[in-house]
């Protein structure tokens, strides 16, 4: 069973439905004991960085997530949930993140022909061929975001090209992040979630 961290994030239900479709049980909870006992954590998220971080902090979930990660529990952050994994974000001011992956979140650069937010299907360029997600190479997944992560190459599993190279899948040990929405990315997205369950959580 997976634990979806409950902090009133927008896309929680659709993420849950995708796991339902895979036959993977999920529990939506903010209970620290359950999160610490979990074998796999999902941090969903849609919206702005600062209020999301504030909600996590108000529920004491920031330190609970860090504790769970420190003892080796796999964690997958999705969209804003991925951005929260980094050290900081400059979305509407300067804000600290969970700092589970080195790097910062900044606005997509303005560039002629590139509308902000990036909204739609973009193609992955693989950066780590030994990843369990390596089959994502050349595949398209669905993105909706105005900010993106900048991180050292060692944490970069795949990226997509927009007004800047955008990290799409990132990893630091047992912490994973998807900038796109796997729950909205058709069969590839579903397969990526299955891989997280089968090759990361259950491995």
């Amino acid at each position: 069973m997976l634990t979806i961290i409950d902090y009133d994030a927008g896309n929680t239900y659709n993420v849950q439905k995708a796991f339902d479709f895979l036959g993977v049980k999920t529990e939506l909870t903010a209970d620290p004991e359950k999160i610490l006992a979990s074998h796999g954590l999902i941090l969903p998220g849609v919206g702005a960085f600062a209020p999301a971080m504030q909600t996590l902090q108000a529920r004491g979930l920031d330190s609970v997530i860090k504790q769970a990660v420190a003892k080796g529990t796999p964690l997958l952050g999705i969209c804003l949930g991925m951005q929260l994994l980094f050290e900081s974000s400059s979305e509407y001011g300067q804000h600290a993140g969970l700092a589970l992956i080195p790097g910062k979140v900044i606005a997509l650069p303005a560039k002629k022909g590139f509308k902000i937010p990036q909204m739609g299907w973009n193609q992955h360029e693989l950066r780590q061929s030994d990843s369990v997600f390596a089959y994502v190479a050349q595949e398209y997944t669905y993105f909706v975001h105005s900010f993106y992560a900048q991180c050292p190459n060692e944490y970069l599993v795949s990226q997509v090209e927009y007004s800047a190279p955008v990290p799409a899948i990132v990893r630091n040990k047992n912490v994973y992040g998807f900038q796109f929405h796997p729950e909205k990315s058709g069969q590839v997205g579903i397969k990526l979630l299955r891989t997280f369950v089968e090759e990361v959580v259950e491995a």
Partner: protein
Amino acid sequence: MLAKRIIPCLDVDDGRVKKGVNFVNLVDVGDPAVIAAEYERQGADELVFLDITATNQKRETMKAVVERVSRQVFMPLTVGGGITSVAQMQELLKAGADKISLNTAAVVNPKLITQGAEKFGRQCIVVAIDVKMDPTTKQYQVFTAGGKHNTGLDALKWAEQAVALGAGELLVTSMDKDGTKSGFDTDLYRKLNERIDVPIIASGGAGSLADFTTVFTAGKVDAALAASVFHYGELSIPAVKQTLHTAGVNVR
């Protein structure tokens, strides 16, 4: 690179797709979930559900449709038709919709665009605009109430205003072209694209494979929507995408 999107649109009446869909391989051609799954298989990038239910009492059925479709089909879903409040938007988003399309309600109450964008993010708010050219003044005018009411608004100005109010995307239907199968109104989209910095979905007029190439290359739109040519199998989504790919338009 970001792919250009192909979007089938389904009219839903009281929870059922009542007309227009004619896939020989489907058992129940009225079931939105079955049709959505078929379009996912064909490679549609997104789906738009337009609620054409006549009475408000029956509108509840749309929530159930969205809930059911989003359990089986994993692509972006836009829902429009008769949405007049933030509470309705929230219910549909919670049921599994990704975007809400506002048409008449946005003209009647433009604040609704801002309220929705502030609460859910502008990427959730699509403003749909039905456009007809005045034959004498050559002005693009905005029609509401399913194309029945001429608002007198200038479509290019309303588009700019909608974006300024918080629209994250525009779904622009050319009423002059709709149903003619004579191609999209490329001029309209080119003019819009010069003024607008959010994605534009072109709608109305799709009749041939080449029409899609033209609207992306000359009209500079981000997505193209069609209904009957897809529903009746006159054009297939794989064929449209193959044509676009050959023409150098990036598709998934």
